């Protein structure tokens, strides 16, 4: 876990995200990379900036029935239901493997109430492989049982409640990223609430709520009825979300904090688009399903693009499109 400058094609790609020093900005996206070994067959997961794990909850989760996915034009819908091993199995099984290969781990955490998030975070903050963890990504884009199953990130107060609960139980030097949902009328108040409550940075965007209908059965295609839309189809929404929140930071409307961009990135130019809009980190999600080498390829392409343009430091391009 090196904080030193990392060069590819003569470009310094290193980034510092609220104290999270990474050799480069490229990450997997939560839920699009499982927890490591599967992708490690295709590239060394320690080579990308950080490995983001599937959102983990307090207990094992079966997830939903199938079908869990539907392909859509340049995208897909998913309704997995946060299937996972639960935090205890995660720290005893998954995290040690990631630590063993030298990955920098951004652990994504989830819950159905603020207390569950806090419990999961606390286990992580005190686990044996704590040193492999570079930060926590708080997936507030998941359903809040107390609020009719609406996602926490739909509402500033619920978002703040989760973040402050987590902040209270983890050390100040463990960076917290709040992962926001684009399915809101105005992102800025949600971003403000999360930052004010203790988030050190923001991850944007989670999937957009969508749906497909099976015309043979004349019923919803997904077992879970609605699902999250992801992939290149939604990249313009990710760019807009990052742009809006960055603009609010530059205008002084909300505190300045690093943004991790995610949504539809499949090549180096896509990553650069999110960076130019204001992201200092970039996650590669659904593109990994098209090609499991995608996160690594995006890194190579990004470095080449910067080299081509004579840019020697990635940091110089963060938010560059704002002028």
């Amino acid at each position, binding site marked *: 876990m090196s904080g030193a400058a990392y060069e590819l094609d003569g470009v310094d790609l290193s980034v510092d995200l609220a104290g999270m020093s990474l050799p480069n900005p490229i990450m997997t996206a939560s839920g699009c990379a499982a927890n490591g070994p599967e992708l490690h067959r295709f590239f060394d997961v320690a080579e990308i900036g950080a490995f983001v794990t599937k959102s983990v909850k307090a207990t094992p989760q079966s*997830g939903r029935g199938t*079908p869990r996915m539907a*392909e859509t034009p340049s995208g897909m819908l998913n309704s*997995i239901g*946060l299937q996972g091993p639960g935090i205890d199995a995660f720290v005893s099984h998954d995290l040690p493997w990631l630590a063993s290969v030298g990955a920098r781990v951004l652990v994504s955490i989830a819950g159905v109430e603020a207390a569950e998030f806090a419990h999961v975070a606390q286990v992580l903050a005190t686990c044996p492989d704590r040193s492999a963890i570079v930060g926590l990504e708080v997936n507030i884009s998941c359903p809040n049982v107390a609020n009719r199953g609406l996602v926490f990130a739909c509402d500033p107060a619920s978002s703040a409640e989760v973040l402050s609960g987590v902040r209270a139980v983890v050390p100040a030097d463990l960076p917290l990223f709040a992962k926001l949902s684009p399915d809101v009328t105005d992102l800025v108040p949600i971003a403000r609430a999360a930052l004010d409550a203790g988030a050190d940075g923001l991850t944007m965007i989670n*999937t957009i709520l969508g749906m497909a209908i099976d015309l043979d059965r004349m019923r919803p295609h997904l077992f879970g009825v609605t699902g999250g839309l992801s992939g290149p189809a939604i990249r313009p929404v990710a760019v807009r979300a990052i742009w809006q929140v960055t603009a609010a930071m530059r205008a002084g409307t909300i505190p300045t904090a690093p943004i991790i961009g995610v949504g539809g990135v499949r090549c180096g130019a896509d990553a650069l688009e999110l960076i130019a809009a204001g992201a200092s980190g970039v996650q590669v999600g659904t593109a990994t399903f098209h090609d499991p080498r995608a996160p690594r390829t995006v890194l190579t392409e990004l470095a080449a693009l910067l080299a081509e343009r004579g840019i020697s430091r990635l940091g110089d391009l963060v938010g560059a499109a704002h002028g």
Partner: protein
Amino acid sequence: MSTGDHHPVVAVEADVLGNEPVGAYRRLTLAVPGVAATARPGQFAALTVGGETSGLLLRRSFSIHRVAAGSDPAGDRLEIVVADAGPGTHWLTQRTPGDRVGVLAPLGNGFSLPAAPGECVLIGGGYGSAPLPWLAEHLRAMGSRVHMILGAATRDRLFGAAEAGAVADSVHVVTVDGSAGAVGLVTDPLRQLLRDNNIGAVYACGPMGMLRAVGELAIEAGAVAQVAVEEAMACGVGVCMTCVLPIRGHDGATRMTRTCLDGPVFDARALRWEAAADGRVAVPDDAVGAPSAPVGRSGR
């Protein structure tokens, strides 16, 4: 999933070497360097569709029909059998030599061969027969006696009938409409074979309903049944969790298990068939981590 048994997967932009019609299907031959050493019958390949400008994001999965070793690994070939079922497979059926297609292979586990030679039945429904000739060769090479049942709705939907005679000791063809072989379902000859022979193992590949029926007959007759399932897959490599089925583990607990990584071949006894209906599979109430109550909105 145990992390130890991850075998190497070849990821390549493969040259299309051939594309021939076989009944209603197309057999595609692809140059996949290094695939011959590791691939086993029952494994599958995941192909990109639509080319560089494609709006179809996800790979399509196909059973490996066979692999052929080149004089060196760079010359290895992989064959699949494609039914034109929708836009992605339609595009694949139109590929000609000179075109390129992204291929990941081999994926998943394959059929396990028995510890000792014995008598077995291989059953394929429609293009589900694609891996059977190659599997039959493996079984015969170890001294097993191979019966093969090939079924389909109609004659043109049969696959492998022509080459079956050369690789199997007995061949039974059935079609629903009687346009080839006997009128009926694959379970008709299977019932007979299980009764008249000492069948130790049944291997099957085809639609879910057929697999379930085959599995039940085999288990009832005291045979081991290995079935290759076909669940919609977004990634094919174990990272998305879309392809799951409820599978009973060695510890007796049912888990939503990735068919791309821990399948597509499963022991029929491990499958919780009753959870499946109408192309959908519910989470059994006793599955590990099953929700106590349904959730209103997508948790992603």
